[in-house]
């Protein structure tokens, strides 16, 4: 009876984690760094949409486009001024820079837009849809829909376009990629563009459900990171499955065990996977050819 509701709730939150996880993976694959400001892109998506609606009086669709464009701009500025100038930095110092950037973005948003939580109106009403004994909201369908589109889109992009293939080449071997004439820096910039756009899109479609404020990015970012780790940091189906599994386990844990341990369950799984299968759930261990 209740099981169905737990699974559906889990799938809904899981797809959000999956989307955020994907945007983590895209930057990781082209730069080798984990961008901890990713959660802030998600937050910017929601906050900027609300601002565009209330301050600029834009209609919903235009506001969403403006927010995604705005966040992408932030992503570009971030890459251009904080990542690119450090030519020979180690991944570790780059990761620390992303943490600094996340604190900066959060602070600026807090000062500009205030600390209040705000809600975006639902895209297509709030009348619950019944699925057997469980219910979900029209907004969940939007989340599922966008997640599926993004999966198909990223698959096509990374496997069937020259640019996508070039980005993958960079992730396998930067030096070799630049030797065959791929501009590595352009690919890195592109990865920031795609991932900030994707992150903000995730932020926009969840804002009507979860509401948004300057500080929502932290937890969502961490959960997305979990999803990406479970998927082995690949930018494909693995991360999506990782997100969905995480969402379902959280909701089953809260429903069947104890809701007090919901986050503990998620992070316990993360640790377990890091110990037992550091290459991710769905990835074969890498073999190095000598």
């Amino acid at each position: 009876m209740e099981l169905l509701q737990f699974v559906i709730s889990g799938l809904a939150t899981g797809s959000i984690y999956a989307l955020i996880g994907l945007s983590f993976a895209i930057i990781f694959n082209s730069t080798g760094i984990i961008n901890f400001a990713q959660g802030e892109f998600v937050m910017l998506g929601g906050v900027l949409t609300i601002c565009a609606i209330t301050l600029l009086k834009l209609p919903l669709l235009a506001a969403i486009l403006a927010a995604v464009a705005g966040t992408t701009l932030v992503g570009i500025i971030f890459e251009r001024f904080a990542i690119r100038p450090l030519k020979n930095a180690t991944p570790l110092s780059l990761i620390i820079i992303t943490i600094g950037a996340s604190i900066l973005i959060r602070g600026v948003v807090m000062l500009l837009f205030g600390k209040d939580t705000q809600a975006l109106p639902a895209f297509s009403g709030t009348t619950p849809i019944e699925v057997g004994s469980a219910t979900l909201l029209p907004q969940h369908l939007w989340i599922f829909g966008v997640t599926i589109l993004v999966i198909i889109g990223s698959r096509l992009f990374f496997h069937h376009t020259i640019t996508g293939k070039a980005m993958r080449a960079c992730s396998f071997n930067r030096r070799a990629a630049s030797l065959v004439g791929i501009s590595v820096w352009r690919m890195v910039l592109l990865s920031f563009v795609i991932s900030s756009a994707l992150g903000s899109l995730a932020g926009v479609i969840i804002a009507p459900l979860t509401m948004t404020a300057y500080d929502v990015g932290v937890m969502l970012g961490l959960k997305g990171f979990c999803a990406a780790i479970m998927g082995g940091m690949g930018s494909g189906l693995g991360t999506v499955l990782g997100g969905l599994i995480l969402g379902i386990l959280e909701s089953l844990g809260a429903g069947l065990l104890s809701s007090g341990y919901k986050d503990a369950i998620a992070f316990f799984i993360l640790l377990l996977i890091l110990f037992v299968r550091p290459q991710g759930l769905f990835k074969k261990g890498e073999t190095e050819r000598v």
Partner: protein
Amino acid sequence: MRKLVGLVCCFVLLCCTSAAFAAAPIRIGGLFAVTGPASFLGEPEKNTLEMLVKQVNARGGIKGSKIELVVYDTGGDATKAVQLATKLIKNDKVVAIVGPSTTGETMAVIPVCEKEQIPLISCAAGIKITDPVKKWVFKTPANDHVAAEKILIQAQKAKQKTLAIITVSDAFGASGREQLKQMAAKRGFKIVADEVYGPKDTDMTAQLTKIKAAKPDAIICWGTNPGPAVITRNIKQLGIKTPVYQSHGVASKKYIELATPEAAEGVMLPAGKLAVYHLLKKNDPQAKVLKEYADSYRRNYNVEPSTFGGYAYDGFALIAAAVKGGAQTPAAIRDGIEKNGKMVGVSGIFHMSAADHNGLDLSAFEMVQVRKGDWVIMH
């Protein structure tokens, strides 16, 4: 020449006497979490205190004494609060402190104030602050258990027997959970579901599905925004028809806005009277104070006043009343607050005494219900 000297002498003398007439300024300190996670408390508290001091000084101070205010931002950090409290006492030589904003910070600051013998008027709600009574420590928000009791009395009136509680996993929620469980047992309620959620959680359907299966007569949720708003929406999504109570932590229009008026319809909660001051009867003793505070806050800051700012208002009012009674030193102010008797404030009507350093009772809250996107007082 002699005439001139005489004139100068007269002038100097005049200056001296007029200086002697204006009493020495009184310096009070403020410790608020203006930034950080508790900034929703600290910001209105700081604004309120600054506004009040400005108003009092514009009227010529209290009994001729101007008030000087020193406010520090603790960022919600207990260690920082202790350092800043010491700084207020040692460097700024304040005679009393209003704040800190949270229970954790207050508990950390109490030993400092007790040792230095400076009155502390906390703006945090935790019951531990004034129970047991500490000589130099007062607080203005009503205890959480007063709000919990208000809810349970209402549930008893509605003949509800089984309860489900869902509380946030922070200090506020933990305190509410403890109080609710204790008092529900005392009043003969049965708690059939006891769920918690994280302050940043975005979906509580799992917990609510569990609650739905337990078939309670009423659901009590204890938290501050946005959690309770998400829960209210989730309840509507799951089609749960059980009556819902929220805590005083969401007693503002923001909650209805976030939860959407349709989903919040019928939700009941104990609200500090500031949230519903425009609905109070004309003869309510607090009506005048509330309206004045709300109007001037709105005029000064262009935003709606919050209950939290009211805590600082009452803190300042208690000190001001003591100073009006002739107190100048920390010890005299402490005695003045304790012997103040009845004082009509924003958070309620205070009856401070040596045995009660909070002085509020059940009348600090009104039970209100959401109807068509606005509050209605329940009777």
